[in-house]
């Protein structure tokens, strides 16, 4: 074991990481990306409003997010700071302005009218994000605005309550998963993909029946379609084309015979084709008969084409020219499925973290905002049509009701009921102590049902290493389904696919389109975000080149690449939601992080980004980790080592990192501690006097532990401590032993041990009623109906509200409302 100082010397790297990203960096980055890019993308995807008004439509332009503000009852407006929102039960939100250009079309003449910037609704703002007023503020300024400088941000304020959008774990979209089916089902093997595009989730499955036939199912088409017919409908008319797209392996092609024979009834002999009958048309009609029963043939064909474009694998594209690509993708699925059947490949591991994606607050807000914007456009259209029917000139300004978006967003955030029927997405931020708040912001929930066993999903998986805390999970029904991300884990926000694709072609990847789907067995398939983009003769070299380019900064650092030797394929990822962690690059048996670098980081000359930019440290995801050999300590570096762990104890989460010597404990004890650390009374926030939480605890004499962990310094636990060092005697003598209980020394309590204050909020409102009656806060007069003994009102001030710092008893009046 290396010496203490040797083990401690890497911590400055971790501190520089926290200094840069903060403890809730994933939420902030995700929200920033949402505001900066995705908001506009959602608007662009709507693009144009087409109300049923002759010669009139509206083009949507740029969307702008204003700084957070509030509109008072008297109509005045002023910037809103978070603590004002908290105290006055307001929503910390910004105004959204959308550029709208009405266009008038008369015959062939189109006239674009003046562009108007219209207020379309309020967007709740995440604290400490780029849009937040607190962004980039100095400590003094934060305090001036009533904000605790140690508060991490990353949550929203809705009607005065702090709400967290809990990260949702999901199966990776657009990735092929092959599985063996249970014995009782009607099929033997299955290939599944959740094709997701713009919030629309379209699962496609290919099943292999016991007879060997392959059937495909996808949304909007009832039942299952034989694979060969679907392929033909997509444009691969000959059986040879289909076989080539799938594999050039004879064994696999043998398996296809049954499938291909299924399509014979619709085949048309060469030379017999005419305008009406071709193999492709027949195949389309086969589908058309299912989706448009009892319609004319033309309609059926058109409808079938539309269904294929819209609902089959929408992530590849929704245009006509994407059909062949879809066929290649299906071919890929079939190859994998048949390889599984023939035992050339093993089942995919659903619980492998490479097959999981985390949806952060930005992604969640995007899906919510999309729905909100759709309902706004519907509403605008309706309003425009109504004015048109009345014979008036449509006016876009009066047609927009900003309430639609505001209420939709606010309601979802306030209740936690998300689009798609998910509940409990937004939760009230746990303010028991500083650690509980941080841990809450780093929580990940799996949508699997709590009632079913799901043993595998709850298990700790080896790919959780460094990404998910092994100890911090609740006991009971949620065990293993609610998780917390590890200290150094970071969740990717995604980067543009096009640049990566170009880089791949530059690195001599042969494009799949050029090859017309024919992939040889010798060359490795190259996937980008689960989509087959091409093949490459020397995958090891490709992986190396891409990694080098990433370290040199030529391609985005979010790109990860992995080569699977057993299946001869390359997976390149640059999508959002992958959990990644930083490791030190090792080259030729030597760590690239030298003592000189460590000194520069410790002195603050270099930030974490500098390390990243210089290729000294890099982020790896679960997929790329499969290609690495990571040494635990510098002494462990061998000839084949590719990376070095920064600090091994960062596999733990925030809460578990507080445990001294966890490796010497029985593992459930660590789980209990990680859970109970979040229940200890402490100092939740320094601004407790300026907060009005409905319930809050405040600990008067918090102490720091005598035995502490190194991570406590990095997290800042000692600035917001929780708990006290009790002197405990254990007497387990002759049966006079009490389990799970303490007898407290009365004198120590009287001296202040464990002294805490509990605060709760009581509120009341002066209302005006129809008919002239109104409430008033006052010390009630004897004549008021329901008057209690004057004793009860003794502590009320002149204004009818209880005086500060007076002792009250049960039955005392706190607010006198008449």
């Amino acid at each position: 074991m290396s010496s203490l100082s040797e083990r401690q010397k890497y911590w400055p790297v971790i501190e520089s990481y926290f200094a840069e990203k903060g403890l809730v960096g994933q939420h902030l980055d995700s929200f920033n990306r949402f505001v900066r890019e995705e908001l506009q993308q959602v608007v662009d995807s709507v693009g144009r409003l087409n109300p049923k008004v002759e010669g009139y439509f509206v083009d949507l332009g740029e969307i702008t997010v204003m700084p957070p503000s509030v509109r008072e009852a008297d109509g005045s407006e002023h910037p809103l700071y978070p603590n004002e929102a908290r105290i006055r039960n307001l929503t910390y939100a910004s105004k959204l302005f959308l550029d709208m250009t009405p266009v008038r079309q008369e015959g062939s003449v189109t006239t674009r009218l003046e562009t108007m910037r219209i207020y379309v609704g309020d967007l709740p703002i995440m604290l400490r994000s780029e849009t937040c007023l607190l962004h980039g503020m100095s400590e003094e300024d934060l305090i001036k605005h009533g904000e605790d400088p140690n508060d991490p941000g990353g949550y929203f304020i809705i009607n005065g309550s702090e709400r967290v959008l809990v990260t949702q774990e999901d199966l990776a979209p657009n990735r092929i998963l092959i599985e063996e089916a249970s014995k009782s089902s009607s099929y033997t093997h299955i290939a599944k993909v959740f094709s997701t595009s713009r919030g629309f989730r379209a699962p496609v499955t290919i099943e292999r029946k016991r007879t060997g036939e392959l059937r495909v199912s996808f949304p909007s088409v009832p039942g299952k379609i034989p694979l060969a017919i679907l392929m033909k409908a997509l444009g691969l008319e000959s059986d040879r084309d289909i076989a080539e797209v799938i594999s050039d392996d004879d064994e696999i092609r043998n398996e296809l015979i049954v499938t291909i024979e299924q399509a014979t009834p619709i085949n048309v002999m060469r030379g017999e084709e005419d305008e009406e009958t071709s193999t492709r048309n027949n195949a389309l009609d086969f589908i058309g008969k299912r989706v448009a029963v009892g319609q004319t043939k033309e309609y059926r064909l058109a409808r079938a084409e539309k269904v294929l474009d819209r609902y089959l694998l929408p992530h590849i594209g929704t245009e006509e020219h994407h059909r062949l690509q879809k066929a290649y993708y299906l071919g890929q699925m079939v190859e994998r499925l048949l390889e599984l059947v023939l035992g050339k490949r093993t089942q995919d591991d659903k619980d492998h973290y490479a097959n999981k994606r985390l949806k952060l607050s930005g992604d969640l807000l995007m899906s919510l905002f999309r729905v909100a914007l759709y309902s706004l456009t519907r509403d605008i259209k309706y309003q425009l049509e109504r004015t048109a029917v009345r014979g008036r000139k449509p006016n876009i300004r009066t047609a927009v009701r900003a309430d639609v978006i505001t209420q939709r967003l606010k309601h979802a955030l306030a209740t936690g009921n998300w689009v798609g029927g998910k509940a409990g997405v937004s939760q009230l931020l746990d303010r028991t102590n500083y650690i509980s708040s941080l841990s809450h912001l780093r929580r990940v929930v799996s949508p699997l049902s709590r009632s079913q066993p799901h043993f595998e999903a709850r298990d700790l998986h080896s790919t959780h290493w460094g990404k998910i805390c092994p100890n911090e999970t609740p006991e009971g029904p949620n065990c293993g389904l609610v998780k917390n991300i590890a200290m150094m884990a970071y969740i990717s926000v995604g980067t543009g696919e096009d640049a990566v694709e170009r880089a791949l072609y530059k690195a001599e990847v042969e494009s799949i389109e050029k090859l017309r789907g024919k992939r040889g067995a010798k060359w490795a398939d190259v996937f980008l975000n689960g989509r087959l983009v091409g093949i490459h003769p020397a995958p090891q070299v490709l992986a190396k080149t891409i990694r080098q380019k990433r370290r040199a900064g030529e391609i985005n650092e979010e790109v990860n690449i992995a080569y699977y030797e057993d299946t001869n394929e390359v997976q390149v990822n640059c999508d959002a939601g992958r959990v990644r962690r930083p490791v030190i690059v090792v080259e030729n048996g030597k760590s690239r992080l030298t003592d000189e670098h460590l000194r520069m980081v410790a002195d603050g000359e270099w930030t974490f980004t500098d390390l990243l930019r210089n290729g000294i440290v890099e982020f790896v995801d679960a997929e790329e980790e499969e290609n690495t050999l990571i040494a635990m300590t510098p002494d462990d570096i061998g000839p084949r080592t590719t990376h070095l762990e920064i600090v091994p104890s960062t596999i733990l989460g925030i809460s578990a990192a507080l445990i001294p010597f966890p490796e010497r404990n029985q593992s459930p004890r660590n789980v209990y501690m990680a859970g109970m650390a979040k229940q200890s009374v402490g100092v939740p926030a320094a601004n407790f006097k300026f907060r009005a939480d409905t319930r809050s605890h405040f600990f008067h004499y918090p102490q720091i532990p005598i035995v502490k962990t190194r991570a406590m310094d990095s997290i800042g636990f000692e600035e917001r401590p929780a708990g006290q060092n009790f002197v405990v005697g254990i007497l387990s003598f002759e049966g006079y032993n009490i389990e799970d209980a303490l007898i407290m020394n009365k004198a120590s309590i009287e001296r202040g041990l464990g002294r805490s204050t509990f605060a709760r909020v009581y509120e009341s409102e002066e209302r005006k009623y129809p008919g002239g009656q109104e409430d008033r806060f006052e010390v009630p007069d004897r004549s008021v109906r329901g008057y209690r003994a004057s004793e009860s009102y003794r502590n009320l001030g002149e204004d009818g509200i209880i005086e500060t710092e007076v002792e009250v008893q049960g039955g005392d009046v706190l607010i006198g409302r008449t």
Partner: protein
Amino acid sequence: MIIPVRCFTCGKVIADKYEQFKREVRQGDDPAVVLDRLGYNRYCCRRMLLSHIDIIDNFMAFATTEGVEQR
């Protein structure tokens, strides 16, 4: 918040020596030696000084702005 007046466990007054303890530890003395010198022999009193955090300063930062606003 601020150093407790007495040791929770034994009742010995500890608050009066805290400033001195803090000063001497800041000057680089070993806390154990300082505690011995101050006459805190029992571990209950020693933990009071060792594990205390003066977090009142964090709260006072807010109070300052409040005081200014009031005036």
